[in-house]
């Protein structure tokens, strides 16, 4: 009798989500193979500093690389390896080099890539920088010299953090954005205006409510023409216009890929067993809020989805019952801009109104985000010591709307 081939789980994506799910699978008792396909050429590393401290100081992989649990070493890590297709029915993944890998279990952990200005905008002269990888960070860092004129396109979190970091390095920064205030969609106008005021005090110029018509020139002499007929000149151009989930490799399986990959609450994709998604690419319903599947591009999402998706996949592959308790992670993120720390809990973007619960927006504040009467998010502006209490209150409110806020 010959030994049956080892069972195999293929993890597509080797960043934080891919690492944590690999650890969870192996720590959770998976005794078959785990193959991790990482498009990047090196070990997974932490990305939040890439627009903050690592951008200011220059990134160092040794410092940024994640500490790994010992289990992670039992997986086969294929760096610089990309999946280009998957067949969920046949349980195979096709690699960029043309090879195929059969699997018993699949984890989609491909995350997001930075968006670029749309092709209809002529920016053939020079695309400028994006900030997603350590290489991106290193290349931008090299150009952020004192006195450099930096044009940041986009006023979301990354754009605002890049603006703050570049200003701290002595650059002259102009932020261009379609929205009327920074971080408008996730945090709303009042907070956006308050953060904008701090940027302006630090010397950042804003050109808001305008779109980019074209980009001409090249490194050291860009000219960004705007929809209002004016233009902004700069030495350095940075595109911070959001991110797009990496899902093309899942096409052809009848999946909803309109914004990430839709999963059930246990993070299964495709409606069957044998495939799960983790991290930024997973669009899952969270009963803490409602039954609408959403992607959450926040720090804990890869960690929490990895733990849960690993448990789901292990149970499904073993033919046992998956954990009946609903998956209800509380999203949270932070942003550092100058000496201001923003900390968010829940999903402020769902709110139809905001209320300052504590302090004031000019100084330190706790802002509540409400959908109807329901608190769905909370933001701390420069009040880190209140974070644990505010988070606890939000969790209580989400499970008991009668909970009251105590400043």
């Amino acid at each position: 009798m010959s030994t049956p081939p080892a069972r195999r789980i293929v993890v597509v994506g080797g960043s934080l989500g891919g690492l944590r799910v690999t650890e969870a699978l192996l720590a959770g008792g998976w005794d078959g193979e785990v193959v991790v396909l990482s498009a990047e050429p090196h070990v997974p590393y932490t990305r939040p500093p890439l627009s903050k401290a690592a951008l200011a100081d220059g990134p160092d992989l040794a410092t940024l690389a994640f500490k790994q649990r010992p289990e992670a070493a039992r997986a086969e890590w294929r760096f610089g390896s990309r999946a280009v297709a998957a067949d969920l029915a046949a349980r195979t993944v096709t690699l960029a080099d043309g090879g195929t890998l059969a699997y018993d279990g699949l984890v989609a952990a491909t995350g997001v890539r930075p968006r670029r200005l749309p092709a209809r905008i002529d920016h053939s002269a020079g695309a400028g920088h994006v900030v997603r990888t350590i290489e991106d960070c290193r290349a931008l860092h090299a150009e952020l010299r004192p006195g450099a004129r930096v044009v940041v396109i986009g006023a979301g979190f990354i754009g605002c953090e890049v603006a703050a970091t570049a200003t701290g390095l002595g650059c002259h920064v102009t932020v261009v954005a379609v929205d009327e205030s920074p971080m408008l969609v996730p945090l709303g106008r009042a907070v956006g205006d308050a953060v904008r005021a701090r940027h302006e005090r630090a010397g950042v110029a804003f050109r808001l409510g305008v779109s980019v018509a074209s980009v001409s020139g090249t490194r050291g002499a860009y000219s960004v023409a705007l929809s209002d007929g004016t233009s902004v000149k700069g030495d350095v151009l940075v595109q911070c216009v959001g991110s797009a989930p990496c899902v093309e490799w899942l096409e052809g399986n009848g999946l909803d890929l309109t914004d990430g990959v839709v999963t059930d609450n246990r993070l299964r994709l495709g409606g069957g067993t044998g495939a799960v998604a983790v991290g930024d690419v997973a669009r899952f319903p969270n009963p803490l809020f409602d039954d609408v599947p959403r992607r959450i591009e926040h720090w804990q999402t890869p960690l929490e989805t990895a733990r849960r998706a690993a448990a789901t996949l292990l149970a499904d592959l073993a033919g046992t019952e998956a954990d009946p308790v609903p998956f209800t992670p509380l999203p949270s993120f932070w942003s550092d801009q100058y000496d201001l720390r923003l900390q968010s809990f829940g999903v402020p973007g769902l709110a139809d109104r905001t209320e300052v619960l504590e302090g004031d927006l000019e100084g330190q504040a706790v802002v509540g985000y409400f959908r109807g009467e329901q608190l769905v998010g909370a933001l701390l502006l420069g009040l880190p010591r209140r974070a644990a209490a505010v988070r606890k209150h939000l969790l209580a409110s989400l499970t008991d709307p009668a909970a009251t806020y105590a400043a």
Partner: protein
Amino acid sequence: MRINVDLALCQNYGQCVFAAPDVFDLDDAGELVYQASAEETARADVEAAAMACPVQAITIEG
């Protein structure tokens, strides 16, 4: 189990406090305070805290 936090790295993000509130806390000034040792029963939470730390300042011994 002994717990060490590299306070030179720590940025007081509080992620460990959310993961293991019995071991980590932020004081009134927003600075991290923590217990240098914890019972075995807290291991899962402390490991989750170490993984949640954005600057990887937490190490666990034993």
